[in-house]
């Protein structure tokens, strides 16, 4: 029976995984990924990201899991025909050539013979591996393996592409090509689920992100939503802070460069800064810069992994011992 609500590519609720009865890798993860978006999952090492992805892909059995993948219950094997997956540190059999590897995994995904030959040629071209298609994968560099791995994840023309560290080992040019590829997938209406440590790259392509810490989703949403509290304008002026600073409750001053002051105004609305700029100009102060600012993904990430009470980085890795209830930041 289909439980597809049409909008969600992934809708998981209360996913738990306990390894050997001791290690709580996932402690009740809930997450929604909409169709046609690029979704980024990030978190420190051992946070449980790969375990969650492996549960989605039936590589790991969940201790508890509810929810759907492309409208079907998690673990429904036939649905995987519409999912492409690139695991972290993937390894193709060394006796296959790049083209043979693509055709082999396409056949396992039940792609017919003619289509898989055509798709293999097309995708090898897309990832820039056409010249190496007939060579054994054992002769490939890590970056080349990653490119063929990406082609493998798309060989079955999937609706959902799950990529675990897709740019691992890829040079800057290759990374840019991969980013363009991901954006083109989104333009084709595909859903992309990215699992990565490279925050700057995720920031460039992701529509929505989730941050996982110690087996729980600490926060998730669009970058806009997640950084709304941190949005501000910064005005850099020459000289000391204006004397009328105290009249503006939403404004504070910081020392910038030598003999410069940075005025910080909270909020994303540009209207409140106009009278401030007018007043500065009327005082003939030199305005060096006016910048809309917000937290970067890295700031957001660091905030999520930092204990607000102690200021220390939360313990890396999955929790051991008894299950801990999800914090207020977790959940959907």
């Amino acid at each position, binding site marked *: 029976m289909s439980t597809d609500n049409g909008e969600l590519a992934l809708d998981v609720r209360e996913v738990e995984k306990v390894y050997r009865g001791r290690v709580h890798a996932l402690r009740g993860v809930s997450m929604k990924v909409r169709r046609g978006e690029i979704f980024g999952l990030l978190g420190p090492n051992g946070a449980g990201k790969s375990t969650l992805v492996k549960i989605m*892909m039936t*590589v790991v059995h969940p201790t508890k899991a509810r929810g759907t993948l492309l409208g079907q219950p998690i673990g429904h094997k036939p649905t*995987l025909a519409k*999912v492409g997956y690139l695991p972290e540190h*993937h390894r193709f059999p060394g006796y*296959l050539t790049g083209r043979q590897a693509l055709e082999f995994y396409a*056949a396992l995904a039940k792609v*017919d013979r003619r289509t898989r030959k055509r798709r293999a040629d097309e995708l090898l071209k897309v990832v820039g591996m056409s010249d190496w298609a007939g060579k054994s994968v054992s002769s490939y560099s890590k970056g080349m393996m990653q490119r063929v791995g990406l082609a493998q994840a798309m060989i079955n023309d999937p609706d959902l592409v799950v990529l675990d560290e897709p740019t691992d080992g890829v040079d800057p040019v290759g990374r840019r090509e991969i980013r363009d590829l991901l954006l083109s997938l989104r333009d084709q209406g595909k859903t992309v689920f990215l699992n990565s440590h490279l925050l700057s790259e995720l920031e460039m392509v992701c529509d929505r992100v989730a941050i996982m810490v110690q087996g729980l989703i600490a926060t998730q949403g669009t970058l806009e939503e997640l950084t709304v509290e941190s949005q501000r304008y910064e005005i850099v002026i020459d000289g000391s802070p204006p004397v009328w600073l105290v009249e503006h409750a939403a404004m504070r001053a910081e020392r910038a460069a030598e003999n410069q002051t940075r005025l910080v105004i909270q909020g994303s609305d540009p209207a409140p800064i106009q009278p401030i700029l007018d007043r500065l100009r009327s005082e003939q102060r030199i305005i060096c810069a006016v910048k809309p600012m917000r937290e970067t993904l890295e700031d957001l990430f660091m905030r999520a992994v930092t204990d607000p009470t102690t200021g220390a980085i939360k313990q890396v890795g999955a929790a051991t011992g008894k299950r801990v209830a999800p914090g207020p930041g977790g959940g959907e």
Partner: protein
Amino acid sequence: MTAALALLLDSYRELNSRKLFWLTLLLSVVIDCLLLLIGITPDKHLSLLWLHTPFPVMPSTTLSVLLKQTYIIIGINLWLTWAATILALISTASIFPDFISGGSIDLVLAKPIGRLRLFLLKYLTGLLFVGMQVGAFSVVAFVIIGLRSGAWEPGLLLAVPLVLVFFSYLFAVCVLLGLLTRSTIASLLLTILFWLFLFLMNTADKAMLMPHVTNDLYVEKLEARLATAQQQSDSGSAQRTAGLEKELAEARSDRDAIRRWHGYILAVKTPLPKTDDTMNLLVHRVIAAAHLSEEQPEDDQHQLPFLTFKMRAAGVRVTEVLERFESVQRSRTLPWVLGTSLIFEGVVLALAAWIFCRRDF
């Protein structure tokens, strides 16, 4: 079906990439060439190509018999049973540890194919190695024997299914150990150790069977002599009867002790795969199918270790012992030899499949 064919093709490519696969095939060709080169000279000596060897053959031996016997002794007993099996184990031991290694298994498990189906397909394609090797070897041997001697014996091809079954016992154990240890070397060494254990059990069985049948015959002879002595009424019959009764009691006691120990060995052996018996089955079936007669020793020219002077004096003959020995071995039915072995294999495979299906990779 697409996935099954893909796995089949992948296994072929995997085997094809291994030098050992081709080395084994080359050695099979060398042994087949032996069938092409040997012959019988007009003065009934063995010839190799154009060379006359000093080894005489039996006057009744024809070229057909010589070729079939060579196929059985060298092809089956030496090559397929031992050397080719060891090479096949070395070649296939890495199939599952490689298959379940990190980064490799994820790609396969994330496809729309059930784990049990995946496991069984991988197992069956692993048997492809031996199937191809034995198939090629036996078919070529069949053709050479047919072309050279005119004896087209399809029975020679029985080697293909029986060697495959024989190898599958060991491969199932190797797969289970590969899944448990995730190591090619560990699974290979432990499988060979297991095979050695089976060999020792078979050797112990044979070693106990010989005194078992010898003592059975000895008791039977004594019982017959006692019955005869009891019917006689001459002056010494009472003394002879008493002597025979005493000897019979001792013989029965020895026989019961041997039977008991042999029973223990059989009890251990019964649930285990019967590698030796399976190959014996093959040799007997091939001999029968190829219309060969099994060599029988000429009586009393041979010594048997358990045939004592007292037993010989009681009328136990070497031929009788060997016939009884062969008869007991042949009485081990197909269900006992293959059935119990396949049940063992099934249990081992079921356990391995359960581990494969339940494991988090």
